[in-house]
């Protein structure tokens, strides 16, 4: 097997199975950036989306001023193209991580891009929940925290659905981050494949990215179905 690859796909073989920027390391780096950036950006986005609904029109703690600020912040961050955001927040990244290179440094722009994207999707999901259910909770003497729990548990299947969408777009963004040296399958495809005209490397890196995306999509659909009682 190994010899066969060496003979027919020498470029793929050269990337190797060990050390930095080897195939396993690239897959790991891609998953690491996707998952950690999602946990950080997703958490911030969830809180932001939740407060957009709570303070928004007809929200349980309706507040025009707060809503306007949250809404504008989300819109502005959402509007910046990711490749430009990478450059734009480089100083912030350096200040937090101490470097602009590598997979951990990439987490900062990735999380920053995820947070407004996810916030909007959370907002849409929660705003679509039946307002009457929230009213019934209030009528039974619910605290704000109880109401937040109702929002999250009632919205759970749809929150998983939008998380799937967010994770998939994050995989795409890690590849872009790869272009500026974050490592991962994006770096392999561009730096080792495209720039050295090693098409076989580019194709394999693409296939691996597609496999990761299909697995995320499958798990997301499965969980959404499994958890929905509507």
């Amino acid at each position, binding site marked *: 097997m190994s010899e066969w690859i060496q003979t027919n796909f020498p470029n793929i073989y050269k990337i190797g199975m060990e050390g930095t920027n080897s195939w396993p390391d690239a897959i790991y780096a891609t998953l690491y950036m996707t998952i950690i950036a999602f946990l950080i950006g997703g958490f911030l986005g969830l809180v932001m989306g939740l407060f957009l609904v709570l303070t928004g029109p007809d929200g349980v703690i309706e507040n025009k001023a707060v809503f306007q600020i949250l809404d504008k912040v989300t819109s502005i961050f959402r509007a910046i193209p990711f490749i430009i955001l990478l450059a734009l927040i480089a100083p912030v990244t350096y200040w937090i991580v101490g470097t602009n290179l590598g997979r951990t440094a990439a987490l900062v722009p990735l999380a920053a891009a995820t947070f407004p994207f996810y916030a909007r999707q959370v907002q849409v999901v929660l705003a679509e929940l039946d307002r009457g259910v929230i009213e*019934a*909770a209030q*009528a*039974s*003497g619910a605290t704000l925290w109880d109401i937040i729990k109702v929002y999250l548990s*009632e919205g759970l299947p749809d929150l998983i659905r939008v998380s799937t969408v967010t994770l998939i777009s994050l995989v795409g963004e890690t590849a872009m981050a790869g272009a500026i040296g974050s490592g991962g399958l994006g770096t392999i495809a561009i730096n080792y494949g495209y720039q050295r005209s090693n098409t076989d490397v580019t194709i394999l890196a693409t296939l691996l990215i597609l496999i990761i995306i299909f697995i995320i999509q499958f798990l997301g659909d499965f969980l959404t179905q499994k958890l929905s*009682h*509507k």
Partner: protein
Amino acid sequence: MSETIINLEHIDITFHQKKRVIEAVKDVSIEIEKGDIYGIVGYSGAGKSTLVRVINLLQVPSAGKITIGNDVTFADGKVQLQGAALRQKRQKIGMIFQHFNLMAQKTARQNVAFALRHSDLTKEEKAKKVEDLLELVGLADRADNYPAQLSGGQKQRVAIARALANDPEILISDESTSALDPKTTKQILALLQDLNQKLGLTVVMITHEMQIVKDICHRVAVMQNGHLIEEGSVLDIFSNPKEPLTQEFIKTATGIDEAMVKIEKQDIVQNLAADSVLVQLKYAGHTTDEPILNDIYKRFEVSANILYGNIEILDNVPVGEMIVVLSGNRPALEAAQEAIKSADIALTVLKRGA
């Protein structure tokens, strides 16, 4: 001696919407006694739902005073209860809704248990209480079903169990049967009536169906365009409605409207004989005990041909309405009509024979 449990005084509710001011409720005062079943009727948009939401302060009024039990909850333009005190008060006011408003992601049991999360009961006591409540509403065997697996009537039963979880003194029902079929509606109303009698629960029913008021309410208020236009005991309102809207509601409940259309087409009415007169008789209470039609035949030889009759028992008092053709010679006819009137029966002449 009855005591007032809900006292709404001069309630105004005004909404400001982009330069437009909407007065949803205007100067409404209602006093509801403990243990009553109180109906509030009106067409949609009359302000009923908005008004009852001030009882648990889901809606804060613009002006007025609200007293629930012994506590003033709203006065001088502001809510008098804050934070935990307001939440505790809300626990003592159950509410059920037209669309049930159950949590779709939770089972019947979990939906009821949700209302108990701030109760002082132990975990075991809470579990027992949830079982008992589901038993009370007749759904013990569906405890682990999700709302999507239940019928409309079953969902409303779960919602009632949830509303009763904290042993409330008041139950607000906001069009709770409007999304149900007639048979299920009857069952839910019977359940509410039963709870009213067994637990002494005060029930405030919002509805647009006079039939429901007639079936289970003791007192009723009629609302139109944010105003309370008529209020009284169900017996009074049904036997003697003053406002045109109230009369309209009552006609739909008794079915006399539809009956009149058919009666007018009948031969005997179309070609009413010269010695005959078409009259409407309305009576309430004791007068139904006397065989008045029998009596006028004996005394005046005036015969009565009953074309339509409807008798309702409201609050144990019979209230009746009849459309009758009276026939006899002219002086006797006049005398018979006088006799009917003097027996406390409202008589309206609809048509005279030509």
